[in-house]
């Protein structure tokens, strides 16, 4: 057994311990509801009747201007369906109506990361124009905040998110 063998064995042991730790962490993690591949249809809309009903209700509440109830419902939906982008986009809509474009931008980011169909023109979920308008408004709010306090770390982070979303709109692989 030479030096290379010895080093390799040590590395192998470290890797095996690391793998075991990751597996244990996975097993012990709270069992969030898993979405089965069959639960999705081609348009990218989650086909759960309860989910559909609640999102419909949330949309109606938003359209009617009942923002308080809409917020409660959408936040509950986000918690119940953590892997769905639609509640995030609804929450973004809510923040737009509340004149808070930066918070809306952050929700749009979460929504897009969960379901890129919101940036895909060929799907019914496409929200590109709404997101672009939201980004324009958010940039104005961020610039104003940065003029007041150029060292505002939260706003500097938001500016990064703005740039990130601009890049996402430009297109990506995977």
């Amino acid at each position, binding site marked *: 057994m030479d030096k290379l063998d010895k080093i390799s064995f040590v590395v192998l042991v470290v890797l095996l311990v690391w793998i075991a730790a990751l597996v244990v962490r996975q097993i012990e993690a709270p069992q969030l509801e898993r979405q089965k591949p069959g639960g999705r249809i081609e348009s990218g809309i989650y086909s759960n009747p309860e989910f559909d009903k609640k999102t419909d209700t949330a949309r109606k509440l938003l359209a009617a201007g009942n923002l308080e109830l809409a917020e409660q419902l959408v936040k509950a939906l986000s918690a119940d369906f953590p892997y769905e982008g639609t509640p995030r986009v609804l929450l973004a809509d809510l923040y737009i109506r509340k004149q808070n474009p930066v918070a809306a931008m952050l929700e749009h980011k979460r929504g897009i990361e969960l379901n890129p169909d919101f940036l895909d023109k060929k799907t019914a979920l496409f929200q590109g124009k709404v997101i672009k308008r939201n980004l324009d408004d958010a940039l104005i709010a961020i610039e104003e905040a940065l003029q007041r306090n150029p060292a505002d770390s939260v706003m500097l982070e938001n500016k990064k998110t703005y740039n990130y979303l601009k890049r996402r709109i430009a297109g990506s*692989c995977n």
Partner: protein
Amino acid sequence: MGAVIGVGAVLLSFFGNPANTGICVSCFMENVAGALGFHNDIRMQYIRPEIIGFVLGSFAFSLYRRQFVSTGGSSPLLRFLVGVVLIIGCSVFIGCPVKLVLKIAAGDYAACIGLVGLSIGIYIGLEFVENGFQLGVPRDLPLANALIIPAFMVFLLVVSLLQPAFIAFSVKGSGAQHAPLIWSLGLGLLIGALAHYTQFCITGGIARIFLRGPREIMNCPRSTGLLVSIGSFLGFALVTNLLTDQFHPGLSGQPSSNDSYLWSFLGMLVVGFGSVLIRGCPLRQLVAAGQGDNDAGAAVFGMLMGAALVKNWDLAGSAAGTPPAGQIAVLISLCLLLAIGLLNRKRGYGIAPEYQTGLD
């Protein structure tokens, strides 16, 4: 070679391929696997003509130069397994070594961590190769064996033209983003032919960093030329990106970028290590398969299987990070490579003759 692949790849992105993905063997393998129905990610289904071009370009040019030789028998199943592992590493990083260079040329600073990982992986692989690692000496095989991969690519070309019902094509997502077929195929053929002629390989070029003096001459005499090719590839891609307004420098939020740096690093480390063990990066495996190397053909089929696995088992990295399954898969891949390295060493021996002819 560097100029053709650098300018060509960036232009493919400009004419329709996804951003920073003018050429990416692992992404394109995932597209091909999806088109053939090996996975059901509707965003990653397209028969990429570039892949067909790499193999058929190498096949045609090696025939023309009378260098098409059917060889094999050097641990094909192990190479198949390493092919699977290579795609797992690439998918976690989101890109093969060619795409790594394209990302850096487009201003993705985070890709540099992948370059460090790839280089360290190559160094580890070289340590094994220089200390008696061998997969067996390849021997001449009947010609029919060497025709399987080129014939498979001809089949892919025919079905991509005829588009029968059993082949899936994405209508959205990155699979739907592609340059015109004639451009992709033409550039693929040219790169395949040139890569056969120059033995272009990202892994082989980076190996030069670790090989100096007699080690370079004995182990990898072509590596200096390959490193120059990689340099010119990066330079030409950078200039073309600047000219076509595709250079957007930044550390995060780049297209096809995995912002979990540790896993990007480890993913590329797996790719560098595995590539040295089977004598070449994923692009090199395709080109070698085209010129009659059946062992490289086994690695190509392994890569196709790996492409299906990473999608079906959700191993691939994304802008949101690396999924737990992908993290575990990378660590298992490293263990597998170490085990292959340990089990195939002849203690007390130096570099094996088949590696001395040039680390492809």
